[in-house]
């Protein structure tokens, strides 16, 4: 298992993706070892599967990075039916496009992962909660579910094991909050997608009040490989303490924007310079959101930060979704943040006051500063919001997420804000 330049890097999740983008059929997936993990797993007890995944050190790829095996272990195993397993495929974090790739290209990998997760918590009903905009993915998943049903991988008495699992595709109707797991549950129940109070956690009382696990697409796609090759192998894929590979992406003014599966823990510099081909001619790097709209900026001094949960957190931000958005030197940081806060103000679910009232206010202030009408006191107002909409002051993690790019922009690009205010115009 050598790694490094000149050696072949392992890309378990994406190595079989077809060049033409067409999803792997069941036959094609089986030909590259598909559904072998399912056979192997059915011989283990649910607790053994949980332990394996806990040992692998897999952390949730939906953004929070919580240990997947540990999360499952909170589900009471010996309760009466039903229990639920749900794939969070609502990808709507601005700047994020990684789950789409897995959904469109290898739907069976996701389905196999879902069966493993469902078995580990003994759920008998599963859903893929898919974003409405992902039309190609919807087709791919629907036909993959049909194929898996026909082959006996889904349905009653899977491969003669006595274990039953049904699977449904649910397409949403568009709202960023549907990605927050408790809001997702409300949405599946036909309600407004506002979040629920925790506790009780979904693991105990989730969909229709039943024990439920919600996992991200990429998290679930790791599972067949962990079952096939073991916990230790999975840990060794990574360059750091956070196990596995990661689907990273880069967008913005780089030469080759895109997404790549790489060992967890490559540096931000390597992502931008090696994989994204460096900055476009005439543009310089100024900063980056490491994992979507709701993560703090990293700047030049952070280029050598390892892109894993622990290291990015130590640098004052979050790995989030691992899809990087680049801010270049010809793009106005104030305008950049204004665009983000416009998104957050629009997508706030309106359930709690600080977020509902605060975000439009933040957007207005930013818009005023950007158009040259800002006052120096506005910066204090913005800072005030980053505290009062921060962790612990709102009902869910949405508003604190919205404050992350703002508070770091005020820190790293303060001179730009001040220049707008003093010159009464946007200098870009």
């Amino acid at each position, binding site marked *: 298992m050598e790694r490094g330049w000149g050696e072949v890097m392992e890309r378990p999740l994406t190595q079989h993706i077809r060049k033409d983008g067409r999803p792997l059929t069941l036959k094609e997936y089986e030909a590259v070892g598909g559904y072998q993990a399912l056979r192997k797993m059915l011989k283990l007890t649910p607790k053994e599967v949980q332990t394996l995944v806990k040992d692998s050190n897999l952390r949730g790829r939906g953004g929070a990075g919580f240990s997947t095996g540990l999360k499952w272990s909170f589900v009471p195993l010996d309760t009466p039916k039903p229990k639920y397993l749900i794939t969070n495929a609502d990808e709507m974090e601005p700047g994020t496009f990684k789950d789409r790739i897995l959904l469109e290209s290898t739907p069976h990998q996701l389905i196999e992962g879902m069966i493993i997760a469902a078995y580990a918590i003994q759920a008998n009903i599963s859903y893929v909660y898919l974003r409405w*905009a992902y039309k190609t993915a919807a087709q791919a998943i629907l036909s993959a579910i049909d194929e898996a049903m026909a082959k006996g991988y889904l349905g009653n008495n899977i491969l003669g094991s006595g274990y039953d699992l049904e699977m449904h595709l649910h397409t949403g109707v568009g*709202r960023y909050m549907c990605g927050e797991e408790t809001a997702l549950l409300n949405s599946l129940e*036909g*309600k407004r997608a506002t979040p629920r109070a925790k506790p009780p956690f979904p693991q105990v009382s989730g969909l229709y009040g039943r024990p439920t696990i919600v996992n991200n697409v990429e998290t679930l796609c790791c599972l067949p490989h962990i079952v096939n090759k073991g916990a230790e192998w999975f840990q060794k894929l990574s360059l750091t303490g956070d196990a596995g590979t990661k689907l990273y992406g*880069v967008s913005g*003014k780089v030469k080759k924007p895109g997404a790549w599966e790489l060992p967890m823990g490559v540096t931000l510099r390597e992502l931008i310079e090696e994989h994204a081909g460096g900055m476009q001619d005439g543009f310089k790097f100024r900063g980056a959101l490491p994992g979507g709209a709701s993560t703090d900026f990293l700047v030049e001094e952070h280029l050598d930060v390892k892109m894993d949960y622990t290291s990015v957190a130590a640098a004052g931000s979050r790995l989030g979704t691992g*899809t990087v958005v680049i*801010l270049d030197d010809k793009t106005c940081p104030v305008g950049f943040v204004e*665009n983000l806060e416009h*998104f957050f103000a629009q997508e706030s679910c309106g359930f709690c006051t600080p977020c509902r009232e605060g975000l439009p206010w933040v957007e207005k202030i930013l818009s005023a500063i950007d158009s040259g009408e800002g006052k120096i006191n506005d910066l204090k107002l913005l800072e005030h919001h980053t505290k009062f909409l921060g962790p612990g002051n709102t009902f869910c993690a949405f508003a604190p997420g919205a404050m992350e790019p703002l508070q770091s922009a005020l820190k790293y690009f303060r001179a730009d804000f001040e220049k707008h205010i003093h010159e009464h115009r946007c200098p870009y």
Partner: protein
Amino acid sequence: MLSSEEILEIKHAIKLVPYKKAASVEALKVVQEHRRWISDESLRDVAKFLEMSPEELDSVATFYNMIFRKEVGKHVILVCDSISCWVMGYEKLRDQLFNRLGIKYGETTHDGLFTVLPNCCLGTCDCAPALMIDHDLYRNVKAEELNQILEKYK
């Protein structure tokens, strides 16, 4: 009045959930699929069918971006206005689209053919700017290509 086809599809959605109200989003999707948007009358009909008040159903309908409570044109154009598309200059594309169709966000062309709406990140940020027309996604769209794209929907 709901058509017999709509009723059949809503009944199917109800079968998959523990109680009728839980099918509210699905039922709205069914009616919108048939009628493009949800009028006050449709809202009342669906609410009655699901045994809920029109107000309660409207609170669900108005929550979601892709349930249209105002009439839209035959084709809905969604312009991604999120961060990566902004960095890559989607505003030029948007303005060209407004000029070409003579409408702004939220409006429908006189011939009822197109409605233009802003939309959050379409999940294809490495190919920005992006837009969607009905079920079709367009990536790396250049303002010069717009005419050619729109022709397909006439």
